């Protein structure tokens, strides 16, 4: 029978009180052990979102740069009149340019590529033939935006292709052809290698190599547009000025609208990133505040219960002192009772935590955000970035052995903290007064 036995028996003596205290403390300690792993799990989930968003932001940024360096150079539209079966048909037409006449475009300072493309449409045809040079593999890999995006069947065009075509879905439907079949365009048969899906902004092109397009439309050596790429966004305006200076008739169009849309996308991604960071910080600060409150509440429970116990057992303290117990012995006994009570609650709390940490985490902490539907799509004339939407997600929390030890240590600390003052008061009670106490 030592100090530990006395402490244990004193706790056991008032079962209902001890039980209530243990229930209250154990719930609080279950929260204490659940919060740190919940913070970690939430932060991991949020960090994943942040990583995804960062990746998206990088893609958007590179797309911005690529799109921003692009300029379309062509001659102003003219009216064209064709003889129709019943009457003349008048349409707007893009005048063609002899490629050789514009060979100096390549020498304009800060220009990396000059890409002649041909856009030709017969008035009675429901589609436009679009020719892209397919002889430069480096160009195509550097500027994938030159080729159709959103291939839904078959493959895209590639360097060296000839006699093949990628059809817009509507054209394929019009002719009733599928990948691998042949379609006759401007009197020549082409093998359909890919189908381009329908998108809001893309044009109904039959895309083929520039030389094929020139051949079937009898426009060899000609182009309707020069797509010029500058070496950086900063030099776009300078390049434009030089081109207009050298070729006053040319209209140079910068992809301003597209740029604005891409910038908006970037802003949106940044906002979402910020939101994710804020959530992460909020999770941590909420967790810390809650742990602080629980710690104080726990200590307060132990403090008040032990103060009550000391008051209730004043006469016993007097007896112990009369029998020769030192102040240290009294202090030790009452502190041990507080620690023991807290430790039992800690063990119960850990068991509750093992089974209920996930539920507790979802109740106690703001839910981390996860991001869905991230993606970048490109279409014929530009590139679109999409960063999807942010949604709240629940997390799964596990109590590790380290956390169990932390929980036990924490409950010992709480018990010691909460019972320190009551135990000190018990030790300081003057024996004569304690003996008189009823």
């Amino acid at each position, binding site marked *: *029978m030592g100090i530990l036995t006395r402490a244990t028996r004193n706790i056991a003596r008032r079962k209902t009180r001890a039980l209530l205290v243990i229930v209250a403390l154990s719930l609080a300690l279950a929260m204490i052990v659940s919060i740190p792993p919940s913070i970690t799990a939430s932060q991991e989930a949020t960090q994943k979102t942040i990583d995804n968003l960062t990746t998206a932001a990088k893609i958007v940024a590179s797309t911005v740069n690529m799109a921003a360096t692009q300029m379309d150079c062509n001659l102003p539209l003219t009216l064209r009149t064709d003889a129709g079966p019943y009457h003349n048909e008048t349409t707007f037409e893009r005048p063609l340019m002899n490629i050789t006449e514009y060979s100096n475009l390549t020498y304009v300072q800060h220009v990396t590529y000059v890409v002649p493309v041909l856009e030709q449409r017969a008035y009675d045809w429901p589609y436009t033939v679009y020719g892209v040079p397919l002889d430069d593999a480096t160009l195509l890999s550097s500027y994938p935006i030159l080729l159709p995006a959103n291939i839904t069947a078959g493959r895209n065009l590639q360097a060296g292709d000839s006699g093949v075509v990628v059809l817009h879905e509507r054209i394929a439907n019009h002719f009733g052809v599928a990948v691998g079949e042949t379609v006759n365009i401007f009197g020549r048969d082409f093998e359909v290698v890919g189908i381009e899906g329908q998108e809001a902004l893309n044009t109904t092109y039959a895309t083929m190599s520039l030389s094929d397009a020139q051949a079937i439309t009898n426009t060899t050596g000609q182009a309707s547009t020069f797509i010029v790429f500058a070496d950086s966004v900063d030099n776009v305006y300078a390049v434009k000025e030089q081109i207009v200076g050298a070729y006053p008739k040319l209209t140079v169009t910068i992809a301003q609208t597209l740029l604005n849309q891409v910038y908006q996308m970037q802003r949106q991604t940044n906002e979402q990133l910020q939101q994710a960071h804020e959530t992460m910080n909020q999770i941590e600060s909420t967790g810390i505040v809650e742990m602080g409150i629980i710690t104080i509440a726990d200590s307060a429970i132990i403090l008040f219960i032990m103060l009550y116990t000391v008051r209730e057992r004043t006469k016993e303290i007097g007896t112990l002192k009369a029998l020769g117990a030192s102040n240290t012995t009294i202090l030790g006994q009452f502190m041990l009772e507080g620690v023991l009570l807290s430790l039992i609650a800690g063990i119960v709390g850990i068991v509750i935590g093992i089974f209920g940490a996930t539920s507790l985490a979802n109740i106690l902490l703001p839910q981390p955000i996860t991001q869905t539907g991230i993606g970048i799509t490109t279409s014929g004339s530009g590139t679109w970035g999409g960063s999807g939407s942010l949604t709240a997600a629940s997390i799964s929390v596990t109590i590790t052995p380290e956390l169990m030890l932390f929980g036990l240590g924490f409950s010992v600390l709480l018990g010691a903290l909460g019972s320190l003052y009551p135990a000190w008061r018990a030790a300081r009670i003057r024996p004569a007064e304690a003996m008189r106490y009823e």
Partner: protein
Amino acid sequence: MNELVLKIENLTKTYKLGKRDVQPLIDLNLEVRRGEFTAIMGPSGSGKTTLLNLIGCLDKPTSGSVLIDNIDIARLPESQLYKIRRDKIGFIFQNFNLLPYLNARENVELAMELAGKFKGQRKQRALELLATVGLSEREQHRPQRLSQGEQQRVAIARALANDPAIILADEPTGNLDKNSKQEIVKLLANLNQKQGATIIMVTHDEHIAASAERILFLSDGKIQEKQA
């Protein structure tokens, strides 16, 4: 003539009761020899318990000295006084003051545990003491399962545990029925005669006091000895 175990000189105790100063003991002098059985009588409020508390180091005197085995306890700090209580004093209270969550043997052992005695040693001694007070069969019983007389006997065994210089008994029969009173008085007298225990007993019961070899009266803060 036995040596002095207690010597009180010019002991005065003053304390405040509300705004009033109360002085239950004034320049009190008392000597007790080893092996004496002394009864202190006096009306309620005469300062009997105050005197016992001062001898038992539960309270500190306002002035004067209290020497137990030549140690002036009036000058000792609390950090030393608990040792005097533990090693020199054995207390017997009117309300027994047993710890309800310990059984009879453990209550007796408690005093020895506080004195740092080993488990085997204190268990054997506790059983011997319980046998002395006639409670060998009751060692496993907690106080609530003992009669009041039995509880007081456990308390007496506990008071003897560390072989104290003085046993202080404060109205030890105050809460007992007639039969139990006789038993306890007999037991105390026996301890005094057979084991040579020095007992100072406070009582207001003349019959109980009569069992002591020396009877003192406390009134007006001073001791008067009843002449045989």
